[in-house]
């Protein structure tokens, strides 16, 4: 059974989640979806595009303007790959 976080740790982590959700970054997410591979800029409500293959989606994501990192997700949402696009 997991142990409840101490109040100080909890407060610090809640703040990290809060900041993470409101910070605009140069990340773009490649997500497997029912209709293909979605390419979504962080914070956007909708996908920029949906591609038939992961390779196509990663290529599209990498070529988007002002993208620093491409995050490729597995079918369960976890992270498969986290790549910098800076040359």
């Amino acid at each position, binding site marked *: 059974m997991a142990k*409840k976080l101490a109040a100080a740790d909890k407060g610090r982590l809640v703040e990290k989640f809060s900041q*993470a959700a409101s910070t605009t970054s140069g990340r773009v*997410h490649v997500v497997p979806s029912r209709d293909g591979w979605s390419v979504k800029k962080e*914070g956007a*409500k909708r996908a920029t595009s949906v591609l038939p293959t992961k390779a196509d989606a990663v290529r599209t994501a990498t070529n988007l303007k002002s993208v620093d990192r491409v995050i490729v997700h597995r079918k369960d*949402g*976890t992270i498969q790959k986290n790549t910098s696009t800076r040359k």
Partner: protein
Amino acid sequence: MDSTKVFINCPFDNDFFPLLKCLLFTLIYIDLKPQISETSDSGEARLHKIRDLMKDSLYSIHDLSRVKPLKPRGLPRFNMPFECGIDFGLKLCGKDDFHEKKFLILEAERFRYQKFISDIAGNDIGAHRNDPEQMIKVVRDWFKRNLKIEMPWHKEIWLAYNEFEYNYESILTGDGYDPKDIEAITFSDIIDFMREWVEKYKVDKAGI
């Protein structure tokens, strides 16, 4: 009963954890309050706490997808159908307004339940196919039908969940916790992190 509270009865193990996280995230994203028992008490004390959560929640989600033998020729896990039965007992007991309780039964495959618990036929059964995106769709669509209010499409929730998952893995790993371990932190902590994240995400990022 609180019409925003949803009692969750499901397996608590690392195999089911991705599906459970999607379920929690979906409920929070559509402004509902997941209720999970995390007591380590045994016997009667634990059952009383579960009963109290059920009594307080208008909605319940019972996941029966793991009612199968733990090993070849072994016995299945009976906790989920047992708790589901308690909730049905509450609904059918004729007291207070419990007859208004609404249940969504989740399964991996559409009609598998008929082989071991056919008495629940006629209730709302959803099949998540052990697929996290499908879990979001089944849960979102069921609440859309029941609440009859505007609700984000399942794909918006799925894409937001993936973004949350990136932050979840980064933040927990950075703090020395294993994000894939269901026992790393409590469900109430996870729910608080999700609630804070979703609130900020909707306002600051997605402009919802």
